[in-house]
């Protein structure tokens, strides 16, 4: 399981476990499963999807993966 948090300037929109994360990176979608290497990438505009079917609209910011912890820090986010 991945520990995922979705953070916007105004609030923490999600914090919890998910089996996978699919995020709109600056150059296309990026998928993250457990055991992913430590990574930081900037995000573009699009939909962030978690393994359990939740999704968020995100715009800008970055995604950080570190030891099965995924932090999505975005300038604009809203739940879909």
């Amino acid at each position: 399981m991945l520990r995922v948090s979705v953070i916007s300037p105004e609030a923490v929109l999600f914090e919890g476990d998910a089996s996978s994360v699919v995020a709109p990176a600056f150059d296309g979608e990026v998928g993250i499963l457990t055991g992913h290497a430590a990574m930081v990438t900037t995000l573009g505009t699009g939909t962030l999807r978690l393994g359990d079917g939740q999704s968020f609209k995100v715009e800008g910011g970055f995604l950080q993966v570190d030891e099965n912890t995924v932090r999505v820090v975005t300038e604009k986010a809203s739940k879909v």
Partner: protein
Amino acid sequence: MAKGRELLGRIKSTENTRKITRTLEMVATSKMKRAIDRVIAARPYASALSDVISRLYSPENAGAFPLLRQPEIEKRAAVILLTANRGLAGAFNSNLIKEARQLVARLDAAGTQVDLHVMGRKGIGYFKYIGRTMLVQRTDIGDKPTADDAASLVDGPMAAFAAGEVDAVYVVHSQFKSPVSSPAVTVRVLPVPPPAAGTAQKDYLLFPSAADILTTLLPAYVRNALYRALVETFAGFYSTQRTAMKNATDNAGEMITGLRRTYNRARQASITQEIAEIVGGAAALE
């Protein structure tokens, strides 16, 4: 009993005032709670952002970012003053204006040209009164500021800084420490202070590259600094207003007690006098 009626009128009007201040106190209390929630909700984003920036930053690549440029002399500076649109909050707005006035005086003395960006009717009113030109005047930001509001305030000065037209950007705002303490502070948001580099430089895969990530994150960092200044200012405003209105309500209560006492004393005195007159009159007939 002419005096008595006059006292009754004053009691009535003080009671009405107390009703208003008490209502405003309750309104401010509930708005304050919501404003504090916003301050707390803004913290994770700020810490995540500065964490990643300090991980990616190294002193060698500082020169590549316009926002990290550290000008030696400030030829021109932008001052963003955040005040409220409304008053009835004790010395809240005047403290902010005082802080801004001192900053502007210091910059003037150093020969720095100052661009004023003022938010809030109170701050605008003051600078209009002293006849100082303001570059930007904003009264449209309500008590629920958004990240977009923060961006609209700071993007102009930030672009000017990146272009080298402005050498520093200051924000004068209220720092929310606790519901009873929200002093006015001056924060220099640009140039971005060099982050403490070298906190366990882990091997991250970086896409597209450290430099590109920093280029997009630094503006977000500056915008966030302003967003936090905004939410703290509103939290400070409502907590100061609540305190001011609570004091006003308490004072009104004290005044009413005093007036009541005076009224009762006057009433008793007049009754005693009437009795004395009747008794005196009866005694004279005998």
